[in-house]
């Protein structure tokens, strides 16, 4: 059976940088507090860009980096939980902007774990023969859903997009996207919410922190096991960029001495479904991970949901 691999990546971030000092002007907070509790130093906040604009910009770069053209793409999947428009979906908007004609096109919402869910879904579509070349995107504009008077949340969230071109592997070529381990904890649904009309993100920080630092490492190890990759072989670990203390807490339990641990949130904030592809795209762009090296992706967040897989770096 044919598997899939990531051919190329791309990302987009708004140009406006908002520092912790900037936030201290509008809510009662300070740089030291935010760095200590969350780990973020600055974040990017969109202006007029929509989720679709950012998704298309990231996808356009990934496509350019892949050597393929719009005509080669037959599937577009966008992971997002912050698109304002109900229809057309973001995937169709992206296809229209990039001149991709007649692709399968759908959005997927599992909040912060969205990219790994979408990548798993696209891998399955390729294995089933429903696609040859796909674009998977995580794109979010959390700033539209942020209560800028709430110091417990407005320091966390940000905007951006990351995209991957995923292609079918040749006969006999090893798969570059490992089996996805995905699931949810529906009974903890109230821990992260964007509910109702004109909602704001709300979360129970202690509940999320406890779940993330205790329950996720064994699941991430399952993703390694299913890919046949020992944790010590990992060249990088790219988890959802929620909080450096969560990232360190998970990493400590994984036993990954040789892995670069992505901490893009320091300069990008928490961009929900965009955070994993954004961080991965930057690692690849800076050539910090050799081509072909195994990288563990792991998303987690609202739902509560989680998903992860080992991928081979393009």
């Amino acid at each position, binding site marked *: 059976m044919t598997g899939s691999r990531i051919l190329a990546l791309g990302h987009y971030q708004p140009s406006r940088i908002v520092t912790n000092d900037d936030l201290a002007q509008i809510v009662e907070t300070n740089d030291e507090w935010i760095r*200590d*509790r969350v780990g973020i130093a600055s974040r990017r906040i969109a202006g007029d860009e929509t989720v679709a604009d950012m998704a298309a910009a990231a996808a356009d770069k990934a496509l350019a980096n892949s050597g393929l053209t719009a005509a080669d793409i037959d599937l577009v999947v966008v992971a997002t939980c912050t698109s304002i428009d109900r229809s057309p979906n973001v995937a169709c908007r992206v296809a229209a902007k990039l001149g991709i004609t007649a692709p399968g096109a759908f959005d997927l919402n599992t909040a912060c774990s969205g990219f790994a869910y979408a990548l798993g879904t696209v891998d399955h579509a390729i294995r089933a023969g429903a696609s040859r070349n796909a674009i998977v995107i995580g794109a979010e504009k959390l700033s539209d859903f942020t209560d800028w008077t709430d110091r417990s949340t407005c320091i966390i969230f940000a905007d951006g997009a990351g995209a991957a071109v995923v292609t079918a592997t040749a006969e006999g070529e090893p798969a570059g996207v490992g089996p996805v381990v995905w699931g949810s904890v529906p009974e903890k649904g109230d821990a992260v919410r964007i509910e109702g009309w004109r909602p704001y993100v709300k979360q*129970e*920080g*202690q*509940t999320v*922190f*406890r779940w993330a*630092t*205790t329950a996720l490492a064994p699941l991430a190890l399952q993703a390694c096991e299913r890919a046949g990759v020992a944790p010590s072989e990992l060249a990088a670990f790219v988890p959802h960029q929620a*909080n450096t*203390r969560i990232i360190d*807490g998970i990493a400590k339990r994984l036993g990954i001495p040789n892995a670069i641990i992505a901490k893009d949130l320091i300069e990008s904030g928490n961009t929900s479904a965009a955070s994993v592809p954004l961080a991965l795209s930057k690692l690849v762009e800076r050539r910090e991970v050799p081509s072909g090296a195994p990288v563990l992706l792991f998303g987690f967040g609202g739902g509560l949901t989680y998903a992860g897989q080992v991928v081979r770096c393009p």
Partner: protein
Amino acid sequence: MTRDEITAGLAEILEEVAGVNPDDVAEGKSFTDDLDVDSLSMVEVVVAAEEKFGVKIPDNEVQNLKTVGDAVSYIEAQA
């Protein structure tokens, strides 16, 4: 297990998780105000305490544990 033994066990955890000087840990001390344990470190303390003392401390109980003495009483009742 006596209250003093539980307090000593908590002091070990607090030192490891949040860098608290064990000499500062006493039943009357507030985790946040006296020992400077923030809300996320408090979660780490609770998780470590569950393992160490073989008890369950659910999320909604954590907010009731204001002082070291509160935690000692909770653990003493559960253990």
